């Protein structure tokens, strides 16, 4: 396992007093970039450790399996920037994975045709997926319930409602079109350079077709890109940072604090339910605990990305870097044949280390 404290030996080696200054500067630069360095070392490690990891195609697979973490980490980032926390994202994801399938099952017999069924199902799920977030936001902003309790309760409620809906059997009846989208690629290049969008050419066995960019990765990237823009450039984004930086100052500056909080929790739940739909498309099933273990991953991604749990800082770009660390770890371990149990341990360790490094860097600065 590459060591997170990669910068330490360098700092320790700086024995000569005349060189100490430049070494310290170097250590500080490396310290600020520790996430990147860690990611590089981690990737390098798995390139040697895992058969077939050093391959351009595994980058696609990496992004494909990482989308849920990316989406939930983005959702969590918005909430954490306001100084709050959303514990419900994982179970909102599970809830959305179930209702998206159930809605499509229910719409199917109406004879709308598959494309319309899928489209309406997705849109309705996204609308219903706003509800947990609106309730969270209402509780936090208007009833002053601590975010931890409000979203913790919502976690329970979503879990309960999900179990009630599926009644002991996982939701399975996803239309074929949806699962095709879920497992499909944007571009296929067949033998002889014939390229086709969305649908792979029919070829004989043994003929290789080049698949380029999974559909799900395309959609997720666009959505996350939009939200990165919203956080970094829009008035809403500025307000979100202001809320987390100093709530009193934000109120005095005339920011509609309650409405913004409501918006942030709704947005978080929206992204989580999008994650649920993606889960359904990818795995062709919906279950209550689909995202249960992703809560740790999402929060770890945000924290590794340098956001403070007290609010006011963090960016989508760095959060994606943090989430990438987890995605690489996940895929690397899977491909090296180690059971995924190790992942939980390592993510837990990295999460704690990230906060310690971040704190250490702040104190030195």
């Amino acid at each position, binding site marked *: 396992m590459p060591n997170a404290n990669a910068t330490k030996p360098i700092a320790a080696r700086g024995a000569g007093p005349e060189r100490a200054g430049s070494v310290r500067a170097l250590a500080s630069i490396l310290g600020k970039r520790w996430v990147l360095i860690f990611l590089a070392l981690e990737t390098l490690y798995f390139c040697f450790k895992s058969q077939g990891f050093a391959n351009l195609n595994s980058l696609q697979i990496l992004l494909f399996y990482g989308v849920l973490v990316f989406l939930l980490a983005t959702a969590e980032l918005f909430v954490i920037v306001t100084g709050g926390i959303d514990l419900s994202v994982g179970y909102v994801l599970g809830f959305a994975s179930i209702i998206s399938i159930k809605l499509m099952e229910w719409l199917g017999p109406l004879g709308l045709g598959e494309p319309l069924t899928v489209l309406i199902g997705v849109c309705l799920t996204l609308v219903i997926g706003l509800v947990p977030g609106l309730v969270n936001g209402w509780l936090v902003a208007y009833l002053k319930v601590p975010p931890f309790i409000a979203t913790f309760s919502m976690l329970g409620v979503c879990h*309960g409602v999900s179990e009630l809906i599926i009644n002991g059997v996982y939701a399975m009846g996803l239309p074929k079109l949806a699962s095709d989208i879920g497992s499909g690629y944007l571009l296929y290049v067949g033998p002889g350079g014939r390229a086709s969008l969305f649908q792979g050419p029919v070829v004989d066995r043994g003929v290789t077709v080049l698949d380029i960019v999974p559909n799900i990765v395309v959609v997720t990237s666009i959505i996350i890109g939009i939200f990165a823009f919203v956080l970094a450039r829009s008035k809403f984004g500025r307000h979100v940072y202001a809320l987390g930086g100093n709530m009193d100052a934000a109120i005095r500056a005339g920011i509609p604090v309650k409405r913004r909080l409501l918006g942030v929790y709704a947005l978080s739940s929206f992204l989580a339910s999008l994650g649920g739909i993606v889960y359904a498309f990818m795995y062709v099933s919906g279950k209550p605990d689909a995202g*249960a273990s992703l809560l*740790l991953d999402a929060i770890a991604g945000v924290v590794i990305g340098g956001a403070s749990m007290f609010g006011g800082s963090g960016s989508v770009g760095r959060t994606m870097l943090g989430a990438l660390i987890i995605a690489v770890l996940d895929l690397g371990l899977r491909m090296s044949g180690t059971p995924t*149990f*190790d992942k939980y341990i390592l993510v837990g360790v990295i999460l704690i280390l990230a906060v310690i490094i971040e*704190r250490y860097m702040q104190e030195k600065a």
Partner: protein
Amino acid sequence: MDGERAAKGGSGFLGTRAGQALAANWAACFLVLMLMVFSLTGRNFLSIVNFQNVLQIQTVAFLLAAAETFVVITGGIDLSVGFVMGLASVAAAKLMQIFLAGHVPVGWTIGLATLIVLAGSVLPGLVSGVVITKFRVPPFIATLGMWGITNGLALKICQGYPMAGLPDILPGIGNSYLLYVHPGDFVSFFSKPDSFPYNRTRELLRFVPSSLPFVLVVLAALSFVLLRGRFGRHTYAIGGSMDAALRSGIAVDAHIIKIYVLSSFLAGVAGVFNIFQTGIGNYTTFNAQYEFFAIAAVVVGGASLAGGKGRIWNSAMGVLVLAFLENGLAISGVQPFYRYIAVGVLLVLAVVIDKFFPDVR
């Protein structure tokens, strides 16, 4: 009750002494109300057999809620209790399997495995505590990290399956009752007489599950520590105001580490007890959400996540509220999953009531 406090609490009925008392003890009132309603809606709900079953099944929940109470009073949170419990359970099972394979006598196997795991169960808390105090990592993050670590370790030990092949007498101990009575025939203590035919077990009357005195003793000891000793005073002081606690010379860091160690140890006790109850080593599934129910019980019991408030017995009552909610719904034929929803609603309700009546408890 002085006028100022009453005014803060609201007007009308809620401003009166009776109203304040009701708000202060709403969880107890809710429990009584719930018991009455379920007695009407559920057949055999109001019976000693059912109540004993509930108490017995909730042993683990009582322990975890007590653990969480200490942490919450200091203003922290421990998300790892459920997975520490699972880790303790599979670790004890693994040790027992190893000892049995080495032909260690059954008594020694159980005793040694229990002691080793109980001693080892302080480790996750020690790590969390050190990370929280020495490295200033928020408790939420530190214990979330520990949530992942202990879950991964437990799964590594058990490879994702419950662990069987343990001594047969385990569930006999964990599920025993203090008193067995066969009306007009015999009275027996701790276990039913061997001569009693197996197929007539249902005719036996059983009184007081052995787990009950165990839980009562543990809770009483913890409550005593919290309310009577210096340890408890410091715990409340830290939760009330960290600065004031520091200035008054309390060794805050050392104390907080002890709190997380205690929490982790109690989770370990719960894990070992789990083996005695089920006879197998169980890892904790994500869906079990022990930490959710433990924190919910503590909050329903009137503790504040901001720290400084909370009692062991109130948390135990919180456990009873959640337990009878589950049990009553099940007996009344309602889908058991409603309990997740109901607990979520109760949790928010508890905080909102606490907001409106901040001083009454």
